[in-house]
């Protein structure tokens, strides 16, 4: 059935590049170029692998945040949640180590995924069923998770069982074909995230909910379910990051993951994902995470700015990124 008797078909089939979407990649290129000029060791293999590995954690969590933010939400609790999940995971591993040996690592990691998903689900359900602003909900859970990890570590450190260290070590320090394992895992998360957001019904609905909840509702999208799922995805990503991160420090402390929410949200926003929802950019987020870590790395290498000011620089970056968004229009 049709309206028209005869009409011309669609025109200009094919690609169209939106230059505004290329911003984060151009910025990353500029920073890499600048880094190479400022410091010879910046592009050395060891340093590049180091930067990418360190950015992997923020990238993994930021993939989850890309879903939450493009569905119109925000999750401030990711840093504390990461610490909390780390603590729970270490406790489970330590408790099981005598009976299971290194099998405790696998069970502990599985447990971490479940806890992460549950933490995300708690955030999501309070937001959707409780109809409370996600900013407030996750501000609350941020405090709760942070207090819980402080309580679990008794204000000190919760180290992983000595017997597990050697078996667990490769998850951070090992490599596959020369590629560090955290990078491999983050790549897997990124690809999965890109597939989910761009190629599945869920991803489409997620963006629709973020762009306009009413349009989504009138188009038969189960809005609350889509939003809650985004927080669960966020929780799972936090758990994956925690699993990779534990061998690096070997312990959970009250400061684990502190201010990561700043880095994560900054990575997402400078990657081009709209903070008001509706536009998710997985690859932009990855570029954002790399930009942040590359700048921090340059600060350490070049001695120009104290590394104590890294968070300040990241704060400046997120504000500048928003200003660029505003005035590029």
């Amino acid at each position, binding site marked *: *059935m*049709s*309206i*028209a008797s005869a*009409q*011309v*078909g*669609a*025109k*200009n*089939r094919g690609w*169209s590049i939106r230059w505004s979407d290329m911003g984060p990649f151009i910025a990353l290129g500029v920073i890499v170029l600048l880094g190479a000029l400022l410091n010879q060791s910046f592009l050395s293999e060891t340093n590049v692998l180091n930067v990418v590995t360190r950015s992997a954690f923020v990238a993994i969590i930021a993939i989850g945040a890309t879903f939450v933010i493009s569905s119109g939400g925000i999750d401030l609790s990711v840093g504390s949640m990461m610490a909390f999940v780390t603590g729970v995971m270490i406790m489970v591993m330590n408790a099981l180590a005598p009976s299971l040996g290194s099998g405790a690592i696998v069970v502990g990691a599985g447990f971490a995924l479940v806890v992460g998903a549950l933490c995300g689900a708690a955030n999501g359900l309070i937001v959707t069923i409780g109809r409370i602003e996600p900013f407030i909900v996750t501000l609350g859970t941020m405090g709760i998770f942070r207090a819980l990890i402080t309580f679990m570590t008794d204000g000190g450190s919760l180290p992983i069982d000595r017997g597990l260290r050697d078996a667990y070590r490769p998850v951070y320090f090992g490599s596959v074909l020369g590629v560090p394992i955290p990078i491999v895992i983050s790549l897997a998360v990124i690809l999965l995230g890109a*597939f989910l957001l761009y*190629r*599945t*019904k869920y991803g*489409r*609905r997620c*963006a*629709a909910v973020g*762009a*306009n909840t*009413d*349009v*989504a*509702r*009138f*188009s*038969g*999208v*189960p809005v609350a379910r889509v939003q809650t799922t985004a927080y669960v995805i966020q929780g799972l990503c936090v758990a994956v990051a925690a699993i990779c991160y534990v061998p690096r420090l070997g312990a959970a402390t009250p400061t684990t993951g502190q201010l990561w929410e700043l880095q994560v949200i900054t990575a997402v926003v400078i990657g081009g994902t709209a903070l008001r929802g*509706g*536009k998710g950019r997985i690859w932009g987020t990855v570029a954002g995470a790399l930009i942040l870590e590359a700048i921090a790395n340059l600060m350490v290498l070049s001695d120009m700015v104290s590394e104590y000011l890294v968070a300040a620089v990241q704060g400046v970056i997120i504000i500048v990124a928003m200003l660029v968004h505003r005035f590029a229009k």
Partner: protein
Amino acid sequence: MASGALPLRRPDLAPETAPALRATDLAKAFGSITVLSGITLDLHAGEVHAIIGENGAGKSTLMKLLSGHLRPSAGHLDMGGQRVAFTSAAAAEGAGIALVHQEILLAADLTVAENLFLGREITRGITVDDRAMNRRAAEVLRSIGATGLPQDLVRDLPLAQRQLVQIARALLDERKVVIFDEPTAVLANKEVEALMRIVRQLRDAGVAVLYISHRLEEVEALADRVTVLRDGQMIGTYDAASLSQRNMAELMVGRELAMLYPPKRQASKAAPLLEVGGLSVDHGRQSGSFDIRPGEVLGIGGMIGSGRTELFEGLLGLRPAKADKVVLNGQPVARRSVAAWRDVGLVYLTEDRKGRGLLLEERLAPNLTLLALDRVHGAFALNRGKEAAALDDAIRDYDIRVRTVHLDAGQLSGGNQQKLLLAKVMMTDPSIVIIDEPTRGIDIGNKSQIYDFIDRMVRAGKACVVISSELPELVGLSDRVLVMRGGRIVAELGGEEITEANVVYAATSSRSDTPAEDNP
């Protein structure tokens, strides 16, 4: 019929004074695309000059050129015989040209007076002089018959009063030329009359009024002269008295209008497709029982606020609702949500195209497929090839006019947005289509295409429910009409009973004695 039968171009009025505003050979191009060219028109003090044209004909562009929001690529403007070139909207305002915007652009949390003087506050020393502003605001409001007080918050005013505040803002200073851009788009009938009174008042005070509107009956009632635009070209300026609404429509479309409404179909004797009994929405604020038959257009009439949209949104599960009986094709319907209804072949096309229908900042394809993602799904993921093909089909089948498919939905004209929305709900291959205000704010060419589409859909055995506030449309399309008042269905009209008078009577009179009363 060609233009030969149309009234001749009006000979020049030979005015004793130079026109208040004269445009000579005005043109506007964006890059290589010319959107307007060859516009020559005079606007005299004390006349209402209407600009009509389909969506995309260039009305808005012309208006922006005249009010300094855009600068012409060619041609020039004269005011009272003096060459003028506006570098900004403020410059045009300074020269005495005011534009009343179509959308309400007011700060809701400020008072009426604060809004009127926003950016041009009266000051005394370094403080603002609220008393002087309130006094002046009261004068202007009174002069246009607004009931709002200068100290009222704009937030607390109904939509129509806000529109009046906006007009008051344009009239605050002495004006030579006032341009109205579709001023009645957001107004109900009574308020339209008030607005028309203001326009006449301005005209009588010697102001030159440029009036842009979709509603031809308003143009007929108000205008002294009418300029018709089509596809960015000027078709001509005509003496309004010599044009009928039909003439105007034909000039806008550029062809003779076939019968706007398709011929009526045989009354449907078929068993109902959908039976709804005891539907109660918003905790009883709206309720009703009705059935929908295959092969018919069921019109839903009533005044704005009579609960028509709410009743059907309730049926769709978009509002809290319960029902005693909902039977589709003899099968009881258990789950009533947009998705569940879609799966059994019933869809609802909202009246709120921009707020609830389309994702304006999203591309066309994701908009088209959002309700029917399963249809463009491969084994594991969305199939972009299928999606692109679906968009091609929709563009062809629904005559969506686009230069490229790489557009956001918000970049389409109103008529094309409506066609995209229609294509979106039709992608699910429904057997019952509920369309709320099928042609609101779209031009006459698109209207007749949509009417024709509804007709063919119904002739193919589907059922269509049309909720419409436009009486000619309701009467012209429907095989059966239910009229609502105060949240209840108060009358059912069929066949010869379907007249504008009967619908209005049922919709407004407190006691209806039209036949086949339902839910008295």
